[in-house]
């Protein structure tokens, strides 16, 4: 069978299933008792097995088959989930992923999985026997202790039995079974009780008398009777009641009652022990259970509510986006034409069209929005692995994974986040011993948080680790020549924290595998700035650090302020503008060859854009200057321009592969008149 046409679908779906496996396995690690999760993993593995077998990828099919066997054992309670077991299963999932990626890259999906298969097999048969044996034993012992323990007595009833036994009365527990098709159950019960009461006293029944009268029971009910009649007589008399099919009478002795009580207690203990055993290393036990139930119910809710979706190739969406960008450009052109013509009807039509395209823009942008989940979901695995490698106890908390970001941003944000999380794990969270000695819980927490705010998305990574050590950072920065000693003293804690973002900086004493090869955080900073975002560090020594990343919602359509410089038009992103002002020449002050203005009590340096951009024109000295106040972090600068044109939504375009990294220009856009305007990169202008 020619399967090549299904290859793409196979790869996509395999990736999804593997991701699902990963997620559910992590969840399972937290809730080892939840069979529903095992079922989910099992389902994914099963589908994967089927697909890969159809496509002829035997290694994948083989490995998934073994994995499935192990999962099946867990599902049927013959195996307990342990960290070691999960390790092997995770390895298997990793290898599956590797193979799928290999296939995606054009390979044949072959990989030596013998070792993992072996391990899975060992788990399947090796550990199965002892575990199964104990469970069986447990069941047997439970059975014997349970005996025919039909009734539980309270203290009062026990005293009654005790006293009657002392007075040579017999106490019987009687089970009465009625015919399945018995029509008048209450009547039969009445007859049974009447008979019993003639013989002695009924001290207890199960279900209660009220329930029996209401026929709220199946065929069997139990009674405790205190009487002087012998056992057999009681049984025979009861059997005479019509529609009673079976009567069992057993006498109760004091010893029995006592042992039964003890059994009761020990049984509870035993079951608890079993649970603890099963959980082994994973320490969370009873407290997690309610949460677990909630979780599984929410996941179920999600799956059932998944509305109708279709799979669309991302390239098609990109094409749609490009076409729409063209439309936005033409919209701009139409707007300027209608403004010139001042035709009421044209104005109205253009206005309507603007509104429709505005809606359309929202929809298209939303379509390209992807929840950050797609990036976040690989982190729990990573953190788990790293924590084991580093011998630290770390829990990762993910908040706001449903926050949506443009796909273009999503594609870029993964690597910086990996870097930051590795950094937090390696340098932030201390080893369990150190944490203990500092009076912190052994387990460190890293919180990964995403949320919307205005036109931005914030992603924060917070840890409760050591925080940034000012002395250590300064020492390193000075030795690396990043700052001089004189300046170092004047720096605020925040500025010191930001030093770790400088290139060539690494404070870890030991260069580890995980992070700290000196190419860390400055790369992160550069990437985020290239996305039009900013990064902020807040750190308290001994308490932890917070890395906050601010990102634009989308990279393709942004709001800008158009300004004029000579004959040229430049666009300044609104996201970096604080406000605009018009100042007199006399307001400009000189400070160390730097022209500054006093802006609302702050000294703001001026940047004359015509000089920076070498705008060709004759010198015209104006008394008034138009200034755009922009910011980068908490630094301000005033960009001096000739005049403001206005605010506009523009489509961001790159300058192309030929012109890479032009100073202070982050891109270009096409204006309504068809001309190209350059977008000013404010970050490059503020030093």
């Amino acid at each position, binding site marked *: 069978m020619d399967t090549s046409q299904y290859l793409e679908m196979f790869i996509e779906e395999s990736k999804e299933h593997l991701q699902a496996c990963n997620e559910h396995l992590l969840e399972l690690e937290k809730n080892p008792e939840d069979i529903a999760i095992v079922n989910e993993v099992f389902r994914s593995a099963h589908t994967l097995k089927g697909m890969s077998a159809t496509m002829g990828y035997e290694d994948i099919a083989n490995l998934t088959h073994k994995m499935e066997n192990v999962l099946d054992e867990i599902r049927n309670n013959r195996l307990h989930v342990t960290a070691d077991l999960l390790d092997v299963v995770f390895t298997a999932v990793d290898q599956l992923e590797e193979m799928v990626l290999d296939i995606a890259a054009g390979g044949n999906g072959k990989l030596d999985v013998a070792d993992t298969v072996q391990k899975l097999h060992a788990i399947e048969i090796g550990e199965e026997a002892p575990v199964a044996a104990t469970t069986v034993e447990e069941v047997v012992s439970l059975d014997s202790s349970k005996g025919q323990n039909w009734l539980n007595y309270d203290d009062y009833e026990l005293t009654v039995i005790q006293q009657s036994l002392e007075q040579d009365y017999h106490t019987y527990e009687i089970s009465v079974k009625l015919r399945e098709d018995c029509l008048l159950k209450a009547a039969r019960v009445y007859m049974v009780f009447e008979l019993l009461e003639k013989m002695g006293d009924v001290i207890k029944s199960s279900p209660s008398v009220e329930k029996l009268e209401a026929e709220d029971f199946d065929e069997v009910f139990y009674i405790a009777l205190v009487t002087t009649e012998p056992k057999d007589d009681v049984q025979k008399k009861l059997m005479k009641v019509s529609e009673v099919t079976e009567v069992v009478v057993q006498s109760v002795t004091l010893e029995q009652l006592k042992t039964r009580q003890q059994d009761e207690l020990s049984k509870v203990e035993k079951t608890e022990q079993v649970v603890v055993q099963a959980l082994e290393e994973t320490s969370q036990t009873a407290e997690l259970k309610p949460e677990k139930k909630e979780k599984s119910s929410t996941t179920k809710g999600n799956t059932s509510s998944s509305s109708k979706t279709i799979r669309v190739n991302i390239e098609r969406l990109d094409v749609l986006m*490009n076409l729409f*960008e*063209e439309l936005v*450009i033409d919209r701009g052109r139409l707007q300027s034409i209608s403004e010139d013509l001042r035709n009421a009807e044209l104005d109205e039509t253009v206005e309507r069209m603007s509104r429709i395209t505005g809606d359309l823009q929202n929809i298209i942008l939303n379509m390209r929005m992807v929840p950050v989940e797609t990036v976040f979901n690989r982190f729990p695995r990573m953190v788990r692995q790293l924590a084991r490698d580093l011998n630290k106890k770390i829990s990762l908390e993910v908040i706001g994974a449903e926050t949506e970001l443009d796909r273009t941003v999503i594609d870029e944000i993964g690597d910086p986040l990996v870097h930051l999380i590795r950094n937090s794990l390696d340098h932030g969270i201390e080893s369990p011993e150190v944490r203990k000695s500092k009076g912190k819980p052994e387990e460190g927490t890293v919180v990964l948080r995403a949320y919307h705010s205005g036109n931005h998305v914030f992603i924060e990574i917070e840890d409760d680790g050591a925080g940034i050590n000012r002395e250590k950072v300064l020492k390193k920065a000075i030795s690396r020549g990043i700052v001089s000693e004189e300046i170092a003293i004047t720096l605020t804690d925040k500025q010191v924290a930001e030093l770790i973002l400088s290139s060539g900086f690494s404070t870890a004493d030991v260069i580890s595998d995980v992070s700290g090869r000196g190419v860390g955080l400055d790369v992160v900073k550069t990437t985020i700035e290239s996305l039009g975002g900013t990064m902020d560090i807040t750190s308290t020594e001994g308490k932890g650090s917070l890395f906050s990343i601010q990102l634009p919602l989308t990279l393709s359509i942004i709001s800008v302020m158009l300004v004029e410089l000579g004959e*040229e038009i430049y666009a300044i992103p609104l996201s970096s503008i604080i406000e605009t002002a018009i100042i007199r020449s006399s307001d400009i002050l000189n400070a160390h060859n730097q022209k500054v203005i006093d802006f609302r009590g702050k000294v703001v340096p001026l940047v004359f854009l015509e000089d*920076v*951009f*070498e*705008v*060709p024109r004759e010198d015209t000295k104006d008394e008034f200057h138009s200034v755009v106040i922009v910011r980068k972090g908490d630094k301000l600068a005033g960009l001096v321009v000739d005049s403001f044109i206005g605010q506009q939504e523009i489509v961001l*375009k*790159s*300058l*192309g*592969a*030929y*012109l*890479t*990294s*032009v*100073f*202070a*220009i982050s891109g*270009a*856009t*096409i204006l309504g008149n*068809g*001309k*190209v*305007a*350059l977008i000013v990169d404010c970050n490059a202008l503020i030093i």
Partner: protein
Amino acid sequence: MTEAIDVQNLKVVVFQLADKEYVIPVTHVQGIEKLTHITRVPKTPSYVKGVINLRGVVTPIIDLRKRLGLLESELNESSRIIIITLEDMNVGVIVDSANDVLDIPTDSIEPQPEVVGGLEEDYIAGVAKLGSRLLILLHMHLVLNPIKSGV
């Protein structure tokens, strides 16, 4: 059939620069455009004229005369922008005029002679003689080396 022709002939676009004729393989040429408004891009080498809006795509434009070390071109009615595609990069070059597409037999292309009128010889991939015409084949990869020196 077409293959046999391709082996023997190279289809090229002919353009003029300072009275000399140059050629570029048509496979690299995406189109020939009339001059339009060029937006200057500051802080770039002087031969970068700026960028244009080429049907929605921002395309950088370079002055080929300046790039090859000739006098700056005076733009006039016959000036053209040849849009060249190299891998995933689009660049427009300004030429004095472009008006011909030729088939040159591959065996008529010779390596560059020792002296070719003071040009920076690295850019020249070869020279083809076609009758009395001397056609200079440019090494577009070298001419259109991406500019990274921004700062």
